[in-house]
Each structure stands twice: as C-alpha cells, then as structure tokens.
C-alpha cells in the first residue's frame, strides 16, 4: 500500500477533471487543494474529482476538501466527485460534503451532467 497521493489533471475548457491516487490526508489534501486553487486561479469553475484510485480518506483530508468546495462556491463555480468507494461515499454523506458537491457513480455520468 502506498500512502502518498498522486494527482493528475485533465484540463478542459473552463473545467477540469482531477484524478487522485492514494491517501487523502493532510498532505494529500493540501496537494489537491494546491492544484485546485491553481485551476481556480486559471479560470476553472467546474471541477470534477475522480477518486477512483483513492481508497482512504481521513477527517483532515475531508476538512480540506470542504475548504476547496467553499472556495469554489465563493467563486461561483461547482465541484463534483465521482467513482467513490462505498466507504468514502458514505463518509462524504455523513460529513456533509454531499450537501455542497454532487456525487456521481462514474465519470461519464458526471461529465454529461456537468457538461464538461
């Protein structure tokens, strides 16, 4: 098992899909946040986070994700998640992320709904 988070981004017109691989903890969350803020500064207002290869997230990672969501909402944009494990999906629902960010089962459904 690896603990380091890797992030890759598929940049599209005014939108982006961010792929994460690994543990979303403090370090991993900051990595996502840095990339997300770069994208926001670059004009991205629709950000889809594909967590297909992330199996684990802790409370600090969640709080950072909440901050990212709030920032994006402040900028008039939206953030969505897709491909969550059942455990992470439930975690997001309990921790309130699902109230501010849409959650999709797969990337195709998210891309279609968000018109990315």
């Amino acid at each position, binding site marked *: 098992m690896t603990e380091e988070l890797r992030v890759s981004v598929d940049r599209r017109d005014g939108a982006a899909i961010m792929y994460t691989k690994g543990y979303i903890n403090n370090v991993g969350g900051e990595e996502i946040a840095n990339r997300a803020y770069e994208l926001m500064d670059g004009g991205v207002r629709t950000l889809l986070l594909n967590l297909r290869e992330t199996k684990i997230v802790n*409370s600090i990672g969640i*709080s950072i994700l909440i901050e990212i969501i709030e920032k994006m909402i402040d900028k008039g944009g939206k953030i969505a998640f897709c491909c969550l494990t059942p455990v992470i999906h*439930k975690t997001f629902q*309990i921790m309130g992320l699902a109230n501010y960010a849409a959650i999709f089962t797969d990337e195709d459904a998210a891309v279609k709904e968000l018109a990315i």
Partner: protein
Amino acid sequence: MHPIANFLHELQQLERSPVASQGSLILNAFTRHTRFDAGALYLRDARGSEMRLAAKSQCVAPEILDGAAEDVLQPTPNVVVALQSHREAVGVLALAMRGNGGVDDDDISMVRAAAGFVSTLITNQRLLQETREGEFQLNYRLWELESLYDIGLSIASTLNIEDLAEEIMFRMISLTNARRGALYLREDSGAFTLYRSFGDVSGHFLGRELNDESLRDGKPLTFEQGMLVAVPIKGSNDAIIGVLAAAERETREGGIGAFEENELRLLSLFANQVAIALENARLHREALAKQAMERELELAATIQRDILPKSIPTVEGIEIAALSRPARQVGGDYHAFFIRDGVLTALVADVAGKSMPAALLVSALHAVVQLLFAEGREIGEIATELNRHIHRWSAENKFATMIMISIDQEAETLQFVNAGHNPAYLIAGGKIDTLKSHGLPIGILPQTRYLAQTRPFPAGSTAVLYSDGITEAEDVAGEEFENARLEALLEQHLDCSSSTIRDQIADAVDNFVGEAPQKDDQTLVVVRRAPVPSS
C-alpha cells in the same frame, strides 16, 4: 461609490478571505481609506487567549502585545482602538499619521466607526467558523460511530482474510488520522508476523514491544511519546490473536502528534470488532478447508470404487468371497482377481497413507498389475516389476505391502508372493498354516526380487488373505483384535465355505470393535477349492 462605502466594502472582503490574510487586509484598508499611513493590528487567536501581531505597515511593532514585549510601537501611534464586540476583545488597532496636518476628530470618528464594523465582521466570522467547526466535529463523531457500526457489518461479512486485512487497515488509518499502520497476526508458534501494513513500517515500528507482557491486559499501549500506539486484538478465551498498530497521527495544524485518549478508546473498540471478524474469517477458512478435503476424499473414493472389483469372478471349482470396508471414504487397501488359463490369482495390498495420495498410488499399482498380468508374467516376476515401477515413479515415502496367491487346480498347488504383508492363512487337511512375508514391501528398494513360493493346495483347501485393518481393529478400550482371535475363529470354521468364513470374521470384528470408530481399511479375501464330493 462614496469613499466610506468603498472603505466598508473593502473591509467586508474579510468574510471571504482566509484567516492568514485578514490582518493585512484590515490594516491596508485603514491605511488606504484614512489619513493614517502607518500602524499595526493585533488580533486575538480564535482558539487561544493571546493577542498576536496580525499585520504592520510602515512601523516597528512588537510581536506579542499581551506578553512581556519590551519594544514599543514606532512611530508612536496617534490612535489606539480596541476591536471589541459583545464585550469580547478581538483585537487592537494602532494607527499613526506621519505626515503633516495632525489628527482631527473626523479622523478619530472614522477609525472608531470602521473599527466597530471590523469587530462585528470578525466576531460574526468567528461565530460562523465555530458553528462550522462544531458541525464538523458533530459530523465527525457521527462518522466515527457509523464507521464502527459499518466495520462491524462490513468486516464481519468479509470472510476472505486478505480482503479483511485490507479493510481493517483502511478503516483504522482513516479513523485515527494515522499516516502509518500495521496489522500483526499471531502464528501457531506464538510469534507475531506483520500481515498488512500501510505506509512505511520498516523502521521505528513495533518489534520487541509485541512481546510486551502489558499487551496481555488488552489495553492500548503507547510508545515514542504517544506517537505510536499498539492495541491487542483479543480472540476467544482472551487469547491475543493479533495487534493493531498506528503511528503519526495527523493534527489539524498540519503536523503530527500524539494519539489522544479518544482515539485510543476508538482503537480499542475497533480492535474488538476486528477480533470478531478475524475469528469469523478463521472459522470460514477452516470450513472451506474441510469442504475441500471432503471433496478430495469424495474424488479419491470415486477413483478407488472404480478400481476395486465390482463383482467376484466365477471360477469353476473355486469359491471366492471378499470384503472391502474403507475407513475414511477412501483408503489404501486394494484387492484384485485375475484369471489366466484357468488359474485364479487373488491379490491384497495395503498402500501406506490415506486419502488422495494413497488412492493415487493404489491407482498406479492397479494399472501396472493389470498390464503385467496381461503380459502373461508369473507372480514373482510381476511383484519384481511392480516394485521397480512403483519405486521409480512414486514419492520417496510411498510403498505398499502386498500378497498375491495363484491357485492352480490341475497342479493342486498355491503359489504366493508376500511382500511385507500380513501372513495369509492356508487351511488344508484340517490344519492352519501361514503364508509369511518373504520380501520387502513394494516400492522400498528398486533392486528387490521376489520369488514365488509354492504350497500344496488340494481340494477343500482355503486361503484367507486380509489387511491389517482386520487384525488391528480396535475396541473402545484400544485393544486390538489380533491374529490370535482370527486364528481361533478359523479353527472353528475349518470346513466352512468362503462366504461363511468371510461373514464370521466380519461379524467377529464388528462385535469386538463395538462402538469404537473404524481406524483403518479392512479387506478380506477368502478363496476355497471346492471339496471333492463324497461318493
């Protein structure tokens, strides 16, 4: 927009700015929209009581106002305003005007009004932040409880030990905010082995601590100033079946810290759930192994059933009776009959071992014997070739005891080869003789040669071949049936038919054994030359 409106609008950006940049945002607004051009802003920490320097502009300002700061603000401020809301001091703003003109009442009023506005903004924002954090903490506690509940459901239904270990690791790391973790399982030898890990556990992790006597108390243990925690997993009978370890708990401030009491309690609860799950998985694994063994036995039994004679051959002038009772669905006993040129050959063999390995050797023995007989070889040669073949192609510790008898009615003789098998009985002329072993069991040494021995076998003679499952059958007290009982029985039935002798022996063994389980295969072959009809 009116200059004051601009000023307030700029201050209002506070609501959307990160805490770290709030100080400079406020001070910049004051120095830009008032005639004051230097100053410093101190804000009280949201969680603490200390007043900290949040921003300074064109001045020298000591870091902490509350503490014993010896430096003083330079230039000397013209106005110092407390940022206060609902009697709570949230900060202090000191402003200086370095240019000409002096400070007038309008300047003071402007600063006071804006300071009141800022105080309200900061207080509101902090209340909002506290509400959010409270909500987050509430959700987090709910998540912990839900996780524990889910873990109970999830890991209790995950019966594959590999999947289970991964689930345990993910859940533990997530629940404790740890960066590294490990699951150790105890082996039968009592030693703990690292079964799953997360992050780098190569150094500074559990080693000799795993043998710590205090683990036996079942309570969490902390090491390295609380940065590493180990929780024993207690199975049934309070036996420690494993250890969960977590290290480097992340803090909200961005670093790592010691595990707190709440997390240790959580980890203990988690370990209880893990114990149940591991026990379930172990029972499931054992059940699967048992099923696999039963399937193997069933398959082996099928092989053996196909090998053993399905019917007793008919040879004029000879009565044949046989009995085969495997002990465990399948066993290592084998018997066969061959007829060539009116000569009957009967064979009884006992392969070392049980289950599938024994069944496979029986299968090999059966195939080779069939081929050798088909080639027309005599029994001594057959035994010699069989021995060579079995020795060459079978595993090192595989061998079989075997006895073969050939009855030539014309010559009125019985030829036999006994390769390490129990002595068969020969009943002729009202006397009992034995056909003792005169060679090593089949498969022991490659160069062993077997020579057939010949005995007279007149009409009315009987040969009794058996496996050690008959003579070594045990009663409930562990006493064996033994050859003496068998011989005594034969003495009483010297002139009986083959089937009568077989049935008498089988009944006697059954009566002797009683309720005791059958431990070994039992094979019995009785061959009798029909007596000459009395005139």
